[in-house]
């Protein structure tokens, strides 16, 4: 017995549990964002509770006036102790450090990945590799972003290491530092075609062994593959 899917207006009423008859408020779309998110017009009348990147404006005092100006979340440069230690130790290999939505991202040089990882695990106590993945930016010269998300139990803190790798550039494997990376790197290889140097057995993991192509690349067109296959093997046009 689902109830009316009417959108509630957070700003106006005191608690009313069941008497909501407020019509769905048509909210204007958020202002179009350019890839460079700097200096955006902050005030959008339909944003609500505290934004992480801006000073937290509590949700309560929004009685009748349009909400206070809140900047939409955007990456900010980061320079905390961890970054300083890393820069001190590795110098140029630490390309950039940002804080996006309150999460620390450190962009590093890919050839130093293993050393930096080892340092993070041993000295900075990031003993768990939470995730290892990749993102494909085909228009960039070095199209792949290798992302390692690390977690430290002692400090209860996460950090994200990001490295740019080119299409045929081998990425050092971190399997011997965190055994968790074994399957994660195989999945990156399977989905993106990134070769990890030093991986004990880099084979496809999710796709069948003889699959051609790397599915998560942006130029891998599912529909095109499907229509081509159907045309070749069934001799008809796929209706998709």
């Amino acid at each position, binding site marked *: 017995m*689902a109830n009316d899917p009417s959108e509630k207006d957070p700003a106006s009423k005191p608690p009313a549990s069941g008497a909501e008859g407020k019509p769905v408020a048509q909210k204007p779309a958020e202002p179009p964002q350019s890839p460079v998110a700097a200096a955006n017009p902050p005030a959008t009348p339909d944003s609500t509770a505290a934004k992480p990147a801006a000073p937290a404006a509590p949700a309560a005092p929004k009685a009748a006036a349009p909400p206070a100006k809140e900047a939409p979340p955007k990456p900010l440069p980061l320079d905390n102790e961890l970054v300083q230690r890393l820069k001190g130790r590795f110098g140029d290999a630490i390309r950039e450090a940002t804080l996006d939505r309150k999460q620390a991202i450190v962009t590093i040089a890919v050839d130093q990945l293993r050393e930096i990882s080892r340092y993070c695990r041993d000295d900075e106590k990031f003993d768990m590799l939470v995730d290892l993945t990749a993102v494909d930016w085909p228009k960039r010269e070095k199209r792949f972003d290798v992302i390692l998300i690390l977690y430290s139990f002692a400090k209860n803190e996460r950090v994200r290491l990001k490295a740019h790798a080119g299409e045929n550039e081998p990425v050092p494997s971190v399997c011997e530092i965190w055994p968790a990376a074994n*399957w994660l790197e195989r999945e990156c290889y399977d989905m993106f075609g990134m070769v990890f140097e030093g991986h004990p057995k880099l084979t496809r993991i*999710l796709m069948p062994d003889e699959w051609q192509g790397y599915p998560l690349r942006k130029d891998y067109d599912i529909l095109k593959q499907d229509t081509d296959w159907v045309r070749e093997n069934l001799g008809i046009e796929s209706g998709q």
Partner: protein
Amino acid sequence: MSDPRTTELTNVSTTVLGADEIILNMGPQHPSTHGVLRVKLKLDGERVVDSECIIGYLHRGVEKIAEHRSYQQFAPYVDRMDYVAAVSNGLGYCEAVEKLLGTEAPLRARVVRTILTELQRIASHLLWLGTHALDIGALTPVFYCFREREEILKIFEKYCGARLTTHAFRIGGLQYETYDGFEQDVKRFCDDFTHRIDEYETLLTENRIWVGRTKGVGILSAADAIALGVTGPVLRASGVKWDLRKAMPYAAYDLYKFEIPTRETGDTYDRYVVRMEEMRQSRLICLQAIENIPTGPIMARIGKVLKPPPGEVYHSIEAPKGELGYYIVSDGTTQPYRVRVRPPSFINLQAFDKMARGSLVADVVAIIGTIDIVLGEVDR
């Protein structure tokens, strides 16, 4: 090399390699692999010397699909990953997108989300318990567990219309208000539930045969668990007292008091005890939450068309299987640029080799069951 995905007509096929070693294949179709999982075991007599898990039979390309859907359109897809605990998947995704947008769901929505997620945790653990006991040979607990799970699924059906793949939450909050009688239903379930768990415990916990089949089987040390990235009850049973609901609270978990059960050895019996205790703790959370569901809006004001500012976010929750994380990259358009799901079952399954080495063939089934994997999540 033959097609590695050839299904076997019988459960077993053997190739005798050396004088002593046999490769035993638990094919993708097998009553006890909980889905389409293929395990290749290298045996020396009765002992497992080496093992390899071959996955990918249920790969549906969820991450690729995400790049071609809008944020709201993708939300039902995440239910299909860990289909046993769909509500948790939805919670993780909605919260991740909310973080990306820079908003937060209102308090009432967060509390109701917490209640539903904890009920889902109980349901997931019940299914795990039933099937795990069934693998080890106890034929009765599965029916009792499903009877309780039925009650929870009825609550979900009354709330959002679906039992299994619920799509219960929306980005920004909830779509549906709780139905009349929601608190009573949950309270009635929680009141009954203690002596139900006691029933299961009577059948299993002190039973000599159960203890004999599970103690000392599939031991995973804490150091190994952390190195392998294992999370969830498996990590807690190995001795690491860590739960995302306490370490990095999300939804409304910081409002409630509950314990994190931990054990020391990291064998199958410990994982069993941890999950039983987790069910009790989830019930406590539900009881605390329904005492006092705050009134207020259930949806944040975020608009129909979602275009998060460019950037990326990683948000994870404590799903019943472990740490379920979503890494979402936005390029400012209405469709995500990349959605990466950090699947707890996938990473926990890596630990299978470590656990199974040196154990007996008859224990392999118990070890697979105790990791609690769902192939939908392993393969996505």
